Structure formats: structure tokens, C-alpha cells
């Protein structure tokens, strides 16, 4: 049963909350418009409190937007309750039903849809195969590891074949190594099924590894939307530049471009005895794969990472030297 892929469109969406302490209203999400293409993997990325989870919960239907309309495909869905929306969510805490075993957890949504018994069996075992949990059907969920529980949660969402998969920081409860494995898994399965996926995280490497497109949010507003490369190399403002990867900011005057701000990534510059901006080393530390420097250019602190330090000259704290970078490797912002 091939399903028509559907995108998600947010049309000037706002959500207003009341601060319980001051009783003042504020925008959790403000005038946000997004167009998420069918079959793409899109990540909402931002610091905590930026409105990314609220946006996701509005798409799922748990929260109602105060302004604007949400579309699934071409259909406006503002008035639909979560059970009537063709979305499925993978929760941060997995949210498996603790009184059911793996099979019943995955079959839950199918039973509600009155799918015939035989087909339920067939579909559940197929999806469990997809997440590599064959043979675990009769386990209770508390007998599974965190990673396995997350796979069950994913299988449960996949099995009902929703138009859109929603992920609410699904990996944040796993340890670092498992996180990396699981995110590759998620990407593989999403591409295999070809489903539209919206993924919320505050972890930029997760966003980079997973997404076709990243949406950077801050304080309820979308700062930038684009491919990982676009966002890394052409950040629209200092917030985006600083949030994705590390960034040093220098006034454009240094390269004869007054009124601009230079965005210098730590790996884009290096130290030399002469030929760049004069600077003074204030920190020098060997990190294995790179040498970590903090240098002062005038009153600006610049952080550098020089890879393969073994065959390079090492500068020590107090050394006076020069910071060198090529203009093609930096990005300029309007100051």
C-alpha cells in the first residue's frame, strides 16, 4: 500500500503562553511559517525554550496554535485532535505502555484502527524486522535497554504508516555512543520508508548528521532554514553562526571591509610567524587530533583548532605571532 507522501506547512503560526509567576503573556512561538517538503527529513534545532518542542506539539495536535493555520498536505488540521491526525510521534521518554509487551505496544495503533488480526501480525513483525527487534515480541518493555525501547517507540510510530513522523528529542536519554548508532538507524529507516520526518533536538551534531534541512530557532522565532552546509558556511546572523559549530567574530576593518563582521571558524585559521593579523597566544593546549589555541587579536579573543599538530610549529602562551586566514574561508555578516 503505497501512500502519497505529504508535507507539512505552517502558516504564520504563533503560540502564546502565560508565565505562571508573573502572569504575563509571552510568545513561545512567534509568527512562524515553514514549508516542509514531502519525504524530507527536517530538524528543528535550538537552545531549550526556543519553541521547537511547542512547534512539534502543535503539529501533533497536543497544543493549539493561537494564530495561523497548520496544513498536512493541503488539508488544514488545526481543528483535529491528535488521535485524528495522520502523524505519529516518538517521545523523548519513549512513552511505551508499561503494562503491554513489545508486540502489544506496536500493535496498539493498528488495533485502534480495527486492522484484521492476521494483518496486524504481519505488519508488526515486518516493522520489528525493520528496527531489528525480531523475536522480542513477548518481552515487557522494562526488560529492554534504552536503545531497544527507543526502537519499539519508533516501530510503534512507523507501523501505522503515518504521513509524518515526529521526533521529540528521542535520543537524549541514551548514552553518547548509542546516540550515534541510533541516529544513523533513524536516518536509514526514514530513507527506506521515504516518510516525511520532523525532528526536534538541541544537539547540533545530531541535526547535521540527520537532516536534509535544519531550522534554527531562537526565542520562538525561526532564525534560518537551510541545508546543513548552507547553515554552517552561510549563517544569516551571529546567533546561527555561534549556535552551529564554534565561531569567532572579528570586525571587518581587519580585512578592509568596515561595517561587516567576519565569521571565522576555528579550523579556518592558523598561526604563523608573519603574514596575518598580529596576535598574542593566551592558551595553548594539545588535544590529540588538534592543538587548541586562544589568541588575542587586539581586544578580540579568537579560538583556533589546528589539526595534525605533530608536524607543525607549536606556539606557547605569551608568544607573539600572526593569525592567518584566507578570505574565501570566512563568511561576512552585516554588522
Amino acid at each position, binding site marked *: 500500500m503505497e501512500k502519497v507522501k505529504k508535507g507539512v506547512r505552517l502558516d504564520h503560526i504563533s503560540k502564546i503562553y502565560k508565565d505562571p509567576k508573573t502572569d504575563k*503573556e509571552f510568545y513561545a512561538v512567534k509568527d512562524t511559517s515553514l514549508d516542509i517538503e514531502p519525504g524530507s527529513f527536517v530538524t528543528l534545532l535550538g537552545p531549550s525554550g526556543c519553541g521547537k518542542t511547542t512547534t512539534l506539539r502543535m503539529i501533533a495536535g*497536543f497544543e493549539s496554535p493561537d494564530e495561523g493555520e497548520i496544513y498536512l498536505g493541503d488539508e488544514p488540521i488545526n481543528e483535529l485532535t491528535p*488521535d485524528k491526525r495522520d502523524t505519529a*510521534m516518538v517521545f523523548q521518554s519513549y512513552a511505551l505502555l508499561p503494562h503491554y509487551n513489545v508486540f502489544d505496544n506496536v500493535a496498539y495503533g493498528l488495533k485502534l484502527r480495527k486492522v484484521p488480526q492476521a494483518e496486524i501480525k504481519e505488519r508488526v513483525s515486518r516493522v520489528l524486522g525493520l528496527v531489528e527487534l525480531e523475536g522480542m515480541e513477548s518481552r515487557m518493555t522494562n526488560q529492554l535497554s534504552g536503545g531497544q525501547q527507543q526502537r519499539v*517507540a519508533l516501530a510503534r510510530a512507523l507501523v501505522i504508516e503515518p504521513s509524518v513522523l515526529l521526533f521529540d528529542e528521542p535520543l537524549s536519554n541514551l548514552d553518547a555512543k548509542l546516540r550515534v548508532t541510533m541516529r544513523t538507524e533513524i536516518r536509514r529507516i526514514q530513507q527506506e520508508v521515504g516518510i516525511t520526518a520532523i525532528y526536534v533536538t538541541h544537539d547540533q551534531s545530531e541535526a547535521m548528521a540527520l537532516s536534509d534541512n535544519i531550522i534554527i530557532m531562537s526565542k520562538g522565532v525561526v532564525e534560518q532554514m537551510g541545508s546543513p552546509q548552507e547553515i554552517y558556511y552561510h549563517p544569516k546572523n551571529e546567533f546561527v553562526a555561534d549556535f552551529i559549530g564554534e565561531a569567532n567574530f572579528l570586525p571587518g576593518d581587519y580585512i578592509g571591509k568596515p561595517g561587516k563582521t567576519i565569521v571565522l571558524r576555528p579550523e579556518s585559521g592558523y598561526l604563523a610567524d608573519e603574514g596575518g593579523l598580529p596576535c598574542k597566544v593566551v592558551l595553548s593546549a594539545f588535544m590529540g587530533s588538534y592543538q587548541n589555541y586562544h589568541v588575542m587579536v587586539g581586544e578580540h579573543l579568537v579560538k583556533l583548532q589546528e589539526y595534525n599538530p605533530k608536524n607543525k610549529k607549536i606556539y606557547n602562551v605569551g608568544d607573539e605571532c600572526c593569525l592567518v586566514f584566507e578570505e574565501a574561508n570566512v563568511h561576512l555578516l552585516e554588522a
Partner: protein
Amino acid sequence: MAQSKQGAALDRKKLLADPIMVTTIVLLITFLTLFVLYPLAILLVDSFVGDGSFGLSIFKRIFNMPSFTKAIGNTLKIGFVVGIASTLIGLLFAYVEVYVRMGKLTGGLFKVVSMLPVVSPPFVLSLSMIMLFGKAGIITRYLLHIYDNSVYGYWGIVIVQTLTFFPVCYMMLKGLLRNIDPSLEEAARDMGASRFKVFTSVTLPLILPGLGNAFLVTFIESIADFANPMIIGGSYDTLATTIYLQITGAYDKPGAAAMAVVLLCITLMMFGVQKYYLEKKTAATLTGKASRARMLIEDKSVRLPLTILCSLVASFVILMYICVPIGSLFPTWGYSFFPFTFKWYQLVFTRYKGFKAFKDSFVLSFISAPITALLSMIISYLVVKRNFKGKGFIEAVSMLAMAVPGTVLGVGYIRGFAGGVFHTGFLEELYGTAAILVIVFVVRSLPTGTRSGISALRQIDKSIEESAYDMGANSFKVFMTVTLPLIKDSFLSGLVTSFVRSITAISAIILLVTPQFLLITVQINEFAEKGSYGLACAFATILILITYGAVLLMNLFIKHFGTSKALKED
């Protein structure tokens, strides 16, 4: 931000798209309004306009009755003394349990003491008090040879109520003490404070709001108590008994209504302080969990006197409870004790329609228990997990029922339903039926059930239910397939608690019961008042057996079908 209405409007629309949820909410609000708020409101109406014109004339009249003003004084005095005594004894027990290494025997005694008040009818202690210390008391007359000791009156009530209510304080304070981080006290010890100094300068200040809380809860229970003052009060009247007599003796219904308003005002005030001031403060001072296990006090000079003292009190309480079954076997109360006989039981079942009494009580409680349990779980679900207009109302009113003394509710029902709602004849046929008795049982047990349901539901991650909702289950499906199974234990214990509460209830029901129903508690009260203690004891013993059986059955059930088991099996 004028447009913020859209979100609320959408939420409302989503709610309306869920007919089962809307029906449930509407029914709940109707139920609570009709059977909790309306009877209280009618009391107000009655006491201000009961004799034709609006005004304070009825209040003037009742405050001119010396018996009434005296009853207010008596009630407050008893409430105060019982509150303090119960809190202190409760604190002693809690402290010993949490801080002192105890033997197995003492531990067992503690457990029994904490469970007894749950399973026993309210007036059991009064009966045994009379039996042990009364004019013909086993201890006073036959051991000490005091022939004119009177237990009736102030001291009788104080002692009996204290022994009845202190286990509640003990359980409350135990939880609080457990939450104190031992390192706080260890730090104080380390800086050179003696154990006593640690107690007065660290432990006590930390649980002070909790102590106030325990005091007020007991205070409310004490002034609302009807059964004990009725049996052991003698001529020492409290508000609850005065109101009862005003209706059954003087047939002065407006007067009783006004008195009920006065009693209600007192309990509501205390309840307000307890709920909105002390409960918050308690939570604020003691938030976290203890970081690790506490070093128990092994020191004999502390341990021995404390455990002995507690064991003595506990044994005494247990002795009091055992007295009733034994007393039911005496041939003649207070005169001949041997040989034991079953003649009172025979009389209960032959001459005094015991079988019908047990059947009526049992059936009514058996019907009301599942209703209460289900209703309180639904209320807790709505309060904890859902957002809608009217949620505050549902929560507030179901908690309010906790502060309403049974006697007040009883008077409210008489005034509110005897001639139909607002004396219009609407729902008139309800009055005097089994249905209204069941409703009273439900309303009386609802707050306890709701409270335990709310705390059980707060433990469950909100996203578990959201995930089911997201998978396509509507509210009803979510409640039935996820919520209820997850709080099965709490549901079961709510079921049994409300059964036990109903079958042992008397204060409201005694005002409403009509001759076609014989209720055990009412029978016990009648026989105790007549002085037929043998019969009262026989009735009470069977009642204890029933309630104890119900609790045993519940524990068995939870053990075999409880949530924890289901999660363990493969």
C-alpha cells in the same frame, strides 16, 4: 495579544469533538453541583430565610440557646486538645519508627496500629472504653475497685478520639521524617550539637509546618466526629451531636441548618488554612528525597525508653480494639464474664434482624464502592492529565467535600431533597430511597479516593497517555486501556477504602436512613445508647470481620493481579 483566543477556541473545539469526554465532564459537574454544592447552599438559604423573612433571626435564636453556645465551646476545646495530643503521640511514633532501631515485635505492633483505624468502625474505641473503664468497667471496677468511675463526657471523648486519630498523624509525619536528608542532621551533630539539640534545632523546625498540618487534619476530624461523642459523650454535647438532636429531638430544621452552617464555617476555615497555607509550606521545606539511608539510633538509653513507651501505647490501643469482640461473648455485660456465650450473636440474627442489617449495609456499600472508585479515578484523570474549563471547579468541589462534616451533609440532604430540589418537587422521589444513601456514601468517600488517585497519576509520565492519544485512541480509549490499567492498585485500594468507609459510616447516614433500611452502624449506635453493649459489640465484631476481610481480599488481589506483578512476568 487579542488573537490568543484562537488557541483556546481550538482547544474547546477539540474537546467538543470528543463527545464522551464532554458528557463525562457535564455529568460530573452536575453531580458535584447537585450533591455537594447544592445541599450546602440550601443550608445557607435555610438559615437566612428559613422563617419567612431574610435576616439573621435564626442565627440570633440559636446563639441564644445556652446548649448551642456551650456545644461550640466544647467542640473547639476537644478539637484543640485532641489535635495536640494526637500530633504529639503521632510524632513520637513516627520518630521512633524512622530514627530508632526497633525489634521485630515493636515493628509489628506499629504496623497493626497504623492499620486498625482503617478497618474499624468509628465507635469501637468508645465501646471498649466504656467496657474497660466505665462504672462496670473490667479495669476500674474489678481490678481497681473503683465503683463510680464515669467515662462519659469530656475525658472520655478526648481519650477515645486521640486513640482513634493519632495513627493518622503518625502516618503523615512518618512520610515527612523520611524525606529529611540525614546529612542535614549529621552536619549538625558534626558541629557539636547533642542529639536533643539536633532534634530541637534541625528536625523540629523542618517538620513544623507538617506538625501544623497534622494538627489541623485531626482538629477537623475531631470536630466532625459524630459517633464517639454520641456514645461516650453523655451529657457533654458537641456541635455534631447537638445538630443531630436539634433535628431528631426538637424537630427544628431551620435551627439545625443554621447550626450546621456554623460547624461548616469552622471546618472550612481550618481546611482553608491547612490546604492553601500549610500544605504548600510543608512541600517547600521538604522537597527532595533523602540522599541515603539514615544511621538508626542504637544507643540503649534512648532506644529502650522510647520503644517501651510506644509499645505500651500500641498494646493499649490494640487491647482496646480486641475488647469489642471479647465483650460480645460476655453473658452479662459488666456483671458476669464467664462462660463465654454466643447468645448475643444468636439474638442479633434472630430477634434483631441482624441478617437484614448486614445485607442492607453490605449491599449499599457494595454498590457505592465501585461508583466511588471509578468516579474518583475519572476526576483524578481529568484534574491531572487534561485541560479544560471547569477543571478548577471539579477539583475544588471534590476536595471541598473533605471539609464537610457528615452531619452537615446529612442536614443539607434533608433540607435539600425532602421536598425535591428547591422544594419544587423535582427529584422528590429520591428522598428516602436506597439511591440517596448510595449517593451520600459516594460523596463521603470521594475526596480520599480522589486524593490517592491524583497522587498515583502524578507518578505517570504524561507522554505515555499522549502517545496513546497520538496513536489514535480517543479520551475514553486512553482512559480504559492506559490510565486505568496503570493505576490499578490505586483503583483497587480506592474500591476497598470506599467500601470500608461506607459500611462504617454513620454521621450523615443516620439522619437520612428511613425505617425500611437497617444499617449496622445505626444499629450499633442504637444498642449502645440503650446500654445493650453485648448486642452492640456483637454487631461491631461482625462489622470488623467484614471490613477486615475486605482489606485482606484487596491485598491478596493486588499481590496476584497488581501492576507490579504484571510487569515482572515475561
